Structure formats: C-alpha cells, structure tokens
C-alpha cells in the first residue's frame, strides 16, 4: 500500500546538533545513524528508504504519561526524526509504576524536562519539540498542523474528542489507545477513508460513570502493551507497510491473554468525519458534561464538613460519635483511620438501617468525594447530624497522622 503520508513535507533544514548533519541533507543518514539503525536497515521492508521516511516523519504525542512513555521511548529509538510532545504535568511518585519515561530523581520536575533528558539520551538525532500546555480548542489546530501523525495518549474524554475532531478537521491520522486496569483498546482513526473516534463512541459517558486510572487503577505494564501497539501503528503508517488498524478496534485483555479485533465502520451520520458538520473545535468540557459535574462537586463541598484536625480533636476529647469509612475493603487493607467502621459505598443503602440517627456520624473515604455521596444518602434518609471528612484519609495523613500511608 502507499503511505498515507505520501504528501508529507519536502526536504528539511539540516540540524547542527546531529553529527555530520552539516554536510548531509536532512533525510540522508550519517554513518553514526546507519550503524544505530542497522537492525532496521537489514529488514528489506524498512531498509534505507524506510529509515529515511522515519527520519523525515513528524509525529505529535499528546500526553507524556502511561501511553506517552513507551511511545516516546520507542519512536525516538526507532529514529522518528521529529517528535512533538504535549504535556503540562509534573512527575509524581504515583506515576513511576508505569510512566517509564520518568525516574525517581524526576519527581517534582515537569514531565517534559525528564522526557527531554531520556529521549536525548536514547537518540540525540531526534528533534524534540515540547509544548508545556493543556491541549485546548484554542491551541490544538495550531500545534497539530505541523505534524503528519497524532498519537492520542491522553487520559480523559474531553481531550480525546478534541484530538479526534482536530485530526479530522486537519486530515491527520489519529493513533488511538486507551487503558483501564487490565484492558486496553487501540485503533487508527481519522484517515481519509476510515472511521473516527466519534464513529466508535458518538458521545462520552457522563462524568463519574467510567472511573479514570487515578480512581480505578491500572496495571503498570498495560500502557506498555497498548503504547507499543500505538508506536507500531505509527511506524507502519510512516513506512506504508502492513495492515494498519484502520477500521478495526483492537481489544487487549491482559488477564485473559486475549487479543481480539472488531470491525469499525465509518458512520455516514458522524458529525465529524461523515457529514462534516463539525468544522471548528467546540467546548469539549461542555460536550463531556464537565461543568455540570463540577457544579455537583461544588454542591458536595457545601455539605457539612469536618476537618481532619477537628476530627482528631473530637476523638481526643472522647466524644461519642460514629466514624464510617465508605471505601472498598482492599483500600481498608492499605490504610485506615483508627476507630472507623467500614461500610463500602456500594452497600451503603442497605446498611443505613444499622446506623443510629440519634448519634453524630462522620463519614470518610480516600479524598472526600465518595463520602460526600454517602452524606447525601444519609441526609436523604433523615439523618440530621452528619459530617463529611474534608479531604478524606489523604488529608488525614497530611495533617494529623503521617504514619497512615497515602495511595
């Protein structure tokens, strides 16, 4: 097949930072590069011409997190000449279990800084352009327009629809990957003939229905599996070889060790790639119901609250009250507040009858979100003296008892 990138950019200016670059045109390979890419060059399907295509390619990675890590590492190692990286986050300890672009020494640094260090170490021939910003409807087209391929390594629905629509509008292939716990999905959207993300999921789920990795967890290896599939797809598109995942959705079940593909069709009614009603980027937060969810969260914060310090004070004074923990049993095993009783939120409605409405009740969870829901249930059932522990067990650890681990 011919490469979808056949029309990609003409010759490029030599880069002074690369060895021997000054006397070579940008798509020629130096002796150092020929040695470095030896194992590609001896594959007939790649060869010198393929490696030059990789060097000339311009690939934009949205997100330098779980998926972005293997993507950046492997695409840089493979010799993709121009890599753009969009991220605004700083490295956190909870990232290190899967985000192998960043190390322990990088905690607290911007992810783009640690990414630059790693990528430069892996392959100094790569020209890396970083964008330390949230991708928005205002900047997406401007950033994406300079690239041949976009790879979606984001972690939320609004940005996924934004990336999709921007790719459809600009005619850029969108290499998609998404993960949760032990399972993942991958596909190639927004090619000229293929379907787009909206053909698969016309609308996002309401906020809160589908837990994020931060809420539900993810196996550290899983972004490695899906990210390397995305990297493979990007390289296939650049080289114009193989059968890309266009019109197919790959479903990966790591626990079952099962890979399955289902067929995706381009929806003629799709407002993005079908009818082309979407001619400019919209408000994706609004589209995904985020403002409404934020308003609900704000209402939750207006519920009666108690701070960790106030709770500790009440416990110290020997006050008579019930402390209810609405987290899951596996979270209870990690950390707990002394004196608490576990009633997971899922079984809370059926346990309401066991609670004494005449006593003061303090409810807590990990961060205060789930316990707010429990407080609402209690209020709805007529309980008058109920408080939500502000900030949950995380803030309890910060402000009262650092011996309680945070997770």
């Amino acid at each position, binding site marked *: 097949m011919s490469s979808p990138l056949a029309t990609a950019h003409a010759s490029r200016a030599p880069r002074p930072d690369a060895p021997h670059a000054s006397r070579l045109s940008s798509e020629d390979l130096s002796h150092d590069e020929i040695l470095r890419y030896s194992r590609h060059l001896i594959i007939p399907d790649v060869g010198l011409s393929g490696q030059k295509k990789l060097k000339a390619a311009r690939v934009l990675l949205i*997100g330098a*997190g*779980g*998926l*972005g890590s293997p993507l950046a590492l492997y695409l840089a190692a493979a010799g993709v000449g121009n890599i753009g990286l969009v991220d605004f986050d700083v490295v956190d300890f909870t990232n290190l279990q899967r985000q192998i672009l960043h190390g322990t020494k990088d905690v607290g640094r911007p992810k783009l800084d640690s990414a630059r260090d790693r990528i430069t170490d892996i392959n100094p021939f790569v020209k890396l352009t970083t964008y330390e910003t949230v991708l928005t409807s205002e900047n997406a087209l401007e950033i994406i327009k300079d690239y041949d391929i976009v790879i*979606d*390594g*984001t*972690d*939320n*629905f609004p940005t*996924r629809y934004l990336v999709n629509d921007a790719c459809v509008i600009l005619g850029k292939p969108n290499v998609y*990957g*998404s*993960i*949760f*716990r*032990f*399972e*993942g*999905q991958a596909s190639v959207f927004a090619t000229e003939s293929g379907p787009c993300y909206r053909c*698969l*999921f*016309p*609308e*996002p*789920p309401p906020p809160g*229905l*589908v*837990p*994020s*990795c931060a809420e*539900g967890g*993810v196996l550290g290896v899983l*972004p490695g599996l899906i990210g390397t599939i995305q990297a493979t797809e990007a390289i296939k598109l650049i080289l114009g070889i193989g059968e890309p995942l266009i019109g197919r*959705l790959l*479903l990966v*079940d790591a*626990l*079952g060790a099962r890979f*399955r*593909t*289902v*067929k*995706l*069709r381009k*929806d003629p009614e799709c407002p993005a790639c079908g009818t082309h009603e979407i001619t400019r980027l919209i408000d994706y937060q609004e589209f995904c119901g985020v403002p409404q969810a934020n308003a609900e969260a704000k209402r939750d914060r207006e519920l009666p609250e108690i701070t960790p310090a106030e709770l500790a004070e009440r416990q110290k004074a020997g006050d008579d009250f019930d402390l209810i923990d609405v987290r899951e049993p596996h979270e209870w095993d990690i950390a707990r507040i002394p004196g608490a009783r576990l009633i997971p939120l899922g079984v809370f409605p059926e346990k309401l009858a066991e609670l004494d409405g005449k006593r003061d009740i303090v409810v807590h969870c990990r961060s205060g979100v789930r316990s707010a829901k429990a407080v609402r249930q209690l209020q709805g059932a007529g309980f008058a003296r109920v408080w939500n522990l502000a900030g949950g067990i995380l803030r309890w650890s910060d402000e009262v008892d650092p011996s309680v681990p945070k997770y």
Partner: protein
Amino acid sequence: MPATLFLPAVLAKFADGKELTAEGTTVGEVVAGVATRFPALAPRLRDAQGNPYPFVTFYLNDEDIRFQGGFAAAVKDGDELTVVPAIAGG
C-alpha cells in the same frame, strides 16, 4: 438461541464472569436477559428505556450492531456478542 456475551473486566464484576451465555433471538433480547439476571449490570449495558448508550458499543460476531439494526439485530445460535464501553485512561 444461546449466544455468548463477552464483557470487559470493568463490567464483568457486575455479573458472574467475563463470558455469559444468554438466550434471545435479537441482541436486545440477549441484553435484556442478561440485565434481568444481573440487575447491577443492567444500567451499564443500556438506558432506562432499554436503548443502547452512545458510549457502550455492541459487536455481533465482530460487526457493530448499529449497522445491523441495533438491538433489533437477529441473533443465531452460537453467535458472539462483545461489549465495548468507552474508557479514557492513558
């Protein structure tokens, strides 16, 4: 007409496994049967009116049911139905 319904892990916890056998002559009947057996799963497969959500896609033998009549798509003995919900983690 027994068909096999494949659930992702995120939904399987509301049923008794990732692979369910269910009877029905249409996808809608298979889904309704499973929804009756597993009430906690029901609102995650379809809305209160029994219609599919735009963020949960069903594949009948790897083909998107939206192009085969949606929940009215006919199910044959031994067919495989795969449920694919939107996930956003990265």
